[in-house]
Structure formats: structure tokens, C-alpha cells
């Protein structure tokens, strides 16, 4: 690996030149189109400022969740060089665990009222503990069962296919166990959906929901905590070391198996938290809840430069905002917001495969 990094042959150089042309063309086309849309939006605005604020509001909230999931992708990719395809399904399990906790606490009666509304804060904490706990444990076992035996596999695609298998398995298991119909989260009253701060403006009103504020604040807190965890603690240092150079890290006395397991624990924890937030904020979910956020969070991780933790956070936020602002900005149907995120993914991989914040040389090699 390192040998061909330091001595690029002439063949590779010519290849790079040819690709640059393609990048240039695609980049100019995309740029021209965006400027054209910007001019149109300025000359003939279709939406007033209140709409734009509303879009950004939704985007920030969803972006926080994307960021949390994206961190999981980035951490795992850094340590194992593997796209953990089942990561979205870990989030789904967290979502289900939170749902069941709320249902149970609602069922539990204290006096003539139920637990959920007597101790709302305690029940939210319990739900998050359950959600993150279940997701963490399942992340751990996922690694142990589906990925660890394949670490030295001589078939290159084996881990990825195994990840797809795990994803299908988890989704179907949830479907058979919990039923295919959609379920609704039972929020405690202090965190009821749809209510919140009403901000009146000239041409309308924005509702900044309680669940939205809660999710965003919690997501940011978790991200800050994770950042310090990765920067300051010994485990964080070993995770960074392994993602930089596996062999040297092992020589320095880092237990690769343990670090990998712990990485999966952390990424599962974050995905579980994102799952409970998703349930609290959006309310309706079923066993497919993890699929789209999973792929979009992966897009976010790529956008920020895969393997780069602050990049994943920023990428998640950016993707969330772009996705909710995009349809209005481009003047297309709101059904097509998923198309926008996938297009971003493709454009990023063509134009700047190392991501917006990735260090260029070392990461391009991985692509």
C-alpha cells in the first residue's frame, strides 16, 4: 500500500489527468446550474423568508441525526475499512427499544396516572438508556458474528456482502417479530410532537418544535462529548491510531480486536440515540426506518471526508439542510428530496472523493 503511495507511476499520472477533465466538465455544469437557480430565486422568489427559515429549521434537526449516524460510519470505516451497511438497522433497533420503553412506562400506573406523565424526564432518560443500550449490544454482536471472522478474508468483497446480509437479517427479523405495520411513538406530554415555540413573522409563522430543539441540542451535546472522547481518552487515541496505521498501532501494543469491538460499541451507542430521537421527533416508524437515514448518513460521512469525525458531523448538518432547502431552491417537487441527496453523493465522489474536509492525498488512495 505505502509503496505505491509514495511512487506514483506514469500510468497513474495520465489516469489522473483524464479524470480531471471529467471532473472539470461535471463541476462547471453543476456550478452553472446552481448559479442560474440562484439568480432565478433572487429575481422571482417563489417562497418568502419564513419558508426558508422553516426549511433550515427542519434541515438542522434532521441533520443532527444524520450526523450522529454518520459518525458511526466514519469511525467504523476508519478502523475496519468497511462500510457498515447494517448501521441503519442498528439505529432501527434503537428506535424500537425506545418505543417499547415508552409503551411500557405508559402501561405502568402510579396512583391514578401513568408513569410516563408523572416522571417524564426520568422516562425520557430511561428510553434513551434502553435505546442506546440495545443498539450498543447489537452493534457489538454484529461485529463479532458478521465481521470479525472475515477480517482476513481473501475475497475482497466478503465483508461488504456480509454487511448486506446482516442488514437484511435485522430488517426481516424486526418485521416478523414486531409486525410490518407502522407504529407511533408515545411521547411524554412535556415533549409532545408538533407543539413548541411559535415565531410570528410578516408572512406567516414558524413552529420550532420541542422535539426538534431537544433532538438538536442532544445531538450537539453527544457530538461534543464524542469529540472530546476521541481526542482525550486512551481509547479514543487508540481508535485514531488504528485508523491511521493498523500495523504500527499493533506494534505499539494496541489490541486490534478490542479497539474494533469498542468502536462498534460507540457507533452503536450513537446510532441508538439517533434512533430514539428519530422516533420522538417524527413519531411514525416501522422496520424500514433505518434504511434511508443509513444511506444518507453514509452520504454525509462521504461528504465530510470518510474517516474524519468532525467532517462527518459537518457533513450530516450540511446534508440535512441541503436536503430540506434543495427542492425549493431548485424548484422541483418535494418528493424528490432523496434524489438530491443521492445526486450530492455522486457529485462529491466525482468532484472531490476525499470529501469537503478530508485530507486529500491519503484518503484518495482509499477510494
Amino acid at each position, binding site marked *: 500500500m505505502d509503496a505505491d503511495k509514495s511512487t506514483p507511476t506514469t500510468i497513474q499520472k495520465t489516469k489522473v489527468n483524464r479524470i480531471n477533465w471529467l471532473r472539470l466538465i461535471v463541476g462547471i455544469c453543476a456550478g452553472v446550474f446552481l448559479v442560474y437557480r440562484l439568480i432565478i430565486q433572487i429575481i422571482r422568489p417563489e417562497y418568502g423568508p419564513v419558508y426558508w427559515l422553516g426549511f433550515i429549521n427542519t434541515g438542522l434537526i434532521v441533520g443532527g441525526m444524520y450526523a450522529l449516524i454518520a459518525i458511526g460510519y466514519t469511525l467504523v470505516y476508519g478502523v475496519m475499512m468497511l462500510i457498515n451497511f447494517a448501521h441503519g438497522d442498528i439505529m432501527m433497533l434503537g428506535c424500537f427499544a425506545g418505543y417499547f420503553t415508552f409503551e411500557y412506562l405508559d402501561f405502568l400506573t402510579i396512583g391514578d396516572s401513568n408513569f410516563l406523565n408523572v416522571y417524564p424526564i426520568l422516562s425520557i432518560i430511561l428510553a434513551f438508556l434502553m435505546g442506546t443500550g440495545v443498539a450498543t449490544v447489537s452493534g457489538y454482536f454484529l461485529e463479532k458474528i458478521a465481521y470479525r471472522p472475515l477480517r*482476513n478474508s481473501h475475497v475482497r468483497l466478503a465483508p461488504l456482502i456480509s454487511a448486506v446480509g446482516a442488514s437484511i437479517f435485522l430488517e426481516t427479523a424486526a418485521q416478523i417479530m414486531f409486525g410490518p405495520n407502522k407504529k407511533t411513538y408515545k411521547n411524554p406530554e412535556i415533549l409532545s410532537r408538533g407543539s413548541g415555540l411559535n415565531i410570528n413573522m410578516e408572512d406567516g409563522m414558524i413552529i420550532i418544535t420541542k422535539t426538534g430543539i431537544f433532538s438538536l441540542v442532544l445531538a450537539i451535546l453527544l457530538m461534543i462529548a464524542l469529540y472530546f472522547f476521541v481526542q482525550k481518552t486512551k481509547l479514543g487515541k487508540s481508535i485514531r491510531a488504528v485508523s491511521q496505521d493498523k500495523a504500527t498501532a499493533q506494534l505499539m501494543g494496541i489490541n486490534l480486536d478490542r479497539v474494533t469491538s469498542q468502536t462498534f460499541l460507540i457507533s452503536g451507542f450513537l446510532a441508538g440515540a439517533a434512533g430514539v430521537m428519530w422516533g420522538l421527533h417524527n413519531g411514525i416508524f416501522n422496520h424500514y426506518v433505518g434504511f434511508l437515514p443509513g444511506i444518507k448518513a453514509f452520504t454525509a460521512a462521504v461528504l465530510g471526508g470518510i474517516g474524519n469525525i468532525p467532517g462527518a458531523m459537518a457533513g450530516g448538518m450540511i446534508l440535512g439542510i441541503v436536503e430540506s432547502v434543495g427542492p425549493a431552491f431548485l424548484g422541483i417537487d418535494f418528493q424528490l428530496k432523496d434524489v438530491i441527496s443521492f445526486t450530492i453523493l455522486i457529485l462529491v465522489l466525482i468532484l472531490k472523493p476525499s470529501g469537503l474536509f478530508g485530507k486529500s492525498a491519503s484518503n484518495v488512495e482509499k477510494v
Partner: protein
Amino acid sequence: MMNKLLSKAIKNGLVAGVILIFFEMINFTSTIAVILEKMFVSDKKVKEVNPTYMIVIIGLILFLSTASFVRKNHLANEKSAAIKVLVSGLVSGLVSGILVSTLNAILGNYLNNGVDLRKYLDALSPDVIRNFLFQTDINNAIRIYMATTVGGAVLGAFASIVIQKASKLNGVFRSLKKGYNNLQIQKKCEKHPIIKKLFIVFVVIFIFALPMIINAYTISVLGIVFIYAILGLGLNLIVGLSGQLVFGYAAFYAIGAYTFALLTAPKPLGIEMSFIPAFIIALISSGIGGLLVGLPVMNLRGDYLAIVTLGFAEIIRILINSNILADYTGGPQGVKDIGQPHQPAFLVKILGKPLEENVWFLYLIIISLLVVIYIVYRLQYSRIGRSWEAMREDETVAQACGVTTSFYKVLAIVIGAIIAGAAGAIYVSRNTYTGPNEYAFMVSVNALAVVVIGGMGSIPGALLGAFIIKGLPELLRDLDNYRMLVFGALLIIMMVIRPEGLLPAKRRKLAVKPQSLEVLKEDLKP
């Protein structure tokens, strides 16, 4: 030593218990029991499962898990093996028995209190819980569970010893096998040109006689299987030969299918072309789709390529499904009355009467499958195929040997896309209807599974894979709910146990594995 063994046995029991609980949660145990019962008893409609079959299945799970546990830890060869084995069997059985009976006690309590669990746990209807309680009360059920798990585990443990003691017999088998291999009958047969040709002729005759002797249901299943075989062969070219992981294969399938459908259907475009030109245009358009995907992503590798193509497939599906393009694609309603090929006049003349519609279509599918097999076979053993394989094994080395990797990568995607387009066009023409949801992510995964299970880069592997993915579930209709579950687990297990697939390609088999390289180094030491 004993402590370590105990903790290992407890762990084994826990794993078995969790598996049992999982099976109970998804109602898998009783489904298998029903299938067994149907096999031995007449095919009466059973609602209450016979407890005996349940006990057999639960015992069997413990039997297998403990047997493999004893084998893995080489307990049979140690001193005082009998005691150790007995202890580990007992402990494993007890632990898993306690787990399962606790669960069943809880479930039974809910049942007796009249709580319907189906709101939260879909599979656990009252009937199912009664089955799991063996149609008796909770205390009896717990006793039966404990007896079954402990009995199964101890039996399994001792059976493992017996098998290992009988390994001398194993040696006899091995020498017999060796003698057979030395005779090399098989190899001689394989190499002999006349036998090879006769074999091919026989297979072709058999295939062409097939639609005449089977019923309509089998014809429809075979049609799907063969279409998936075509799809698998196309994907095999991309994934198996050129080594690029493409997840969004359904995109090309959808492009071919929709092009064909829109060109031949009366609504929404009203072109109503005949079969052959529409088919050719469908091939061309899916090829262009392949080019569009292939060009920008040709410098991406492995995982990235997978996700980008997945994104592309989702884009295509969302676009087809959206209301904006509904005037051109039919939107969520899909396209109806898609054109079908007419039977050629000479065929009708020879046979005297036209073939039945479905039989004729099966022939069409078989012919296209044979054509695709021929094309893929020729490509695989041509210069192009060799370049692909070189690229798959090591891109840098391939480049250094003069393979223009970017060109060959795009070529693989384009040819694969054309084959997918053909499969799609045939598929919609057969169904005369298509909708956007037929091209969801699962189609891509199924196609990938055909390749992976069959063996990457192997043509017979793709056929076998198609039979397993699309044919087997039809045979096991009772297990329909669990199809995707088993499939997901199978993907993981295949990757762990046999990553090269069931029928690996010949050249793959020749590849030097890292372990054998180590052995080689040891041998070459002076």
C-alpha cells in the same frame, strides 16, 4: 480447567437459549414442526402443533450446539472425557432450559391474563403461545422444556464423543475417496471431447423438452428462475469478473424494462412498437444507462462504487415513481398491456397449432438465457475477460501489464447493463404489467445474492444461484415469511464458511490462498 470449561459451557447454553428464544419470537420453531408433521402425517390443516415435533426440534438445536461445542473444545480426547462431557452437556442444557422456560412462563402468564401480545410482538398470537406451552399448563411446559434441553444437550455431547471415537471409520472413507480420485474417472470424462459434447446435447434436449412435461405453475416459476439467471450472469460479469461491486443493478433492469414497456404499451405514450425493435431499443438505452453510470464512477473502487450505484438505482426508482414524470412513465400506477412477441409463422406451421402462451414464453426465455450464456462464456475466455480478471486480482499490476483499466471497467458495466436490460424487457413482456416498486433495492440484492451464492465469476454458479434464490423459496412455500431472514443469514454464513461460492470458477480455485503461501514458504526453506 474445570472452571474455564464451566464458563464456556454456560456461554454455549446462553447462545443456544438466545437462538431458541429468537426462533420462538419469530414463530420459527412451530412452523418447522408443522412442516415436519405434514411430511409424516397427511397434509391436514394443523392449527395445534403436535408437541412431539416441537420437542424434537428444540432438542435437536441443543443436540447440535452441544455436539459442536464438545468437538470444538476437543473434549473427547482429554482425560476423564466422560465426566467433562456430561458436565458441559448438563450445564448447557440447564442454562438454555432456564432461559426458554422463563420466557414461556412470562408469555403463559400474559396468555392466562388475557393480554393479546400481537400489538407489540406480531408473531405471538395466543395459538402460537399455546403451541409453545405444548398445550398444557405453565408448570408442565417448564418441566418439558428443562427435560428436552438437558436431554438434547447431553445426548449431543455423547454423540460427539461417539463420532470422534469412530474416526477410524472416517479413515476408511478417506482412503476410498482417495482411490476414487486416483482412478480419475471424472476428470477423464470431463476432458473427453465426445462425452462433453454428448452431455451438452443431452442438456439442451432436456431443456427443450422441459416445458412440455411440466404444469403451468412450474413453468411460471422456471421463467422467473431463468430471468434471474440472466440477471445473475450479467451481474457476474461486473462483480465476478471485473471485480467492481455494483449494488444498483436493478437500475439497468428498470431502464430496460421501462423502455420496452413504454415503447410497446398503448398508454401513456401510445407508440405500440412491435417486439423486436422495442427490445433492441431497450438494450441500447440500458447500455447508455450503463455508460452514464460507468463514466463518472470509473475511478471509484469497491465500497464507494457500491454506494454510488445504489444511489443511482434509488434515483431511477424515485423518478419512475414520482408524479412529475407520471405523464411519461405512468407514475405509481405503472404501465399496463405491454406488448408480447408473436409466435413465428413457421413454428405454428411445423407444430400444426400455436404453442400455449406461457410455454412459448418459456422457450423465449430459455433461448435468451442460452444466448447470454454463450456471450458471457466467449467474453470470459477472450482477451477482454482475461483483462477483467487481471483487473479484479490486482488493478495496479493489471495496469502495468498494459490493461487500460478505466476502459475495461466501463465496458464491463455497459455489457452488464445491456444484459440486465434484456432481462428486464423479457420480464415485463412476460408479465404485461410493470410498476415502479418492482425495481426496489431487493432486486439488486437478489441479483447480487445469485452471484455470491453461486460463485463469483462462474457461469454454472449463476444458474445454481438463481435456482436457490428464486426456485427454492417456491418449493418451501410454508417458509415464505422467513425467506429474507434465512437469506440474510445465509449471506453471512456463506461469506464466513465459503466466500468463493458453491460452484466457484475454475480460475478462482487455482488462486493461491495466503495460508498455502505460508506452507509453500516453509517447504522452500533450505
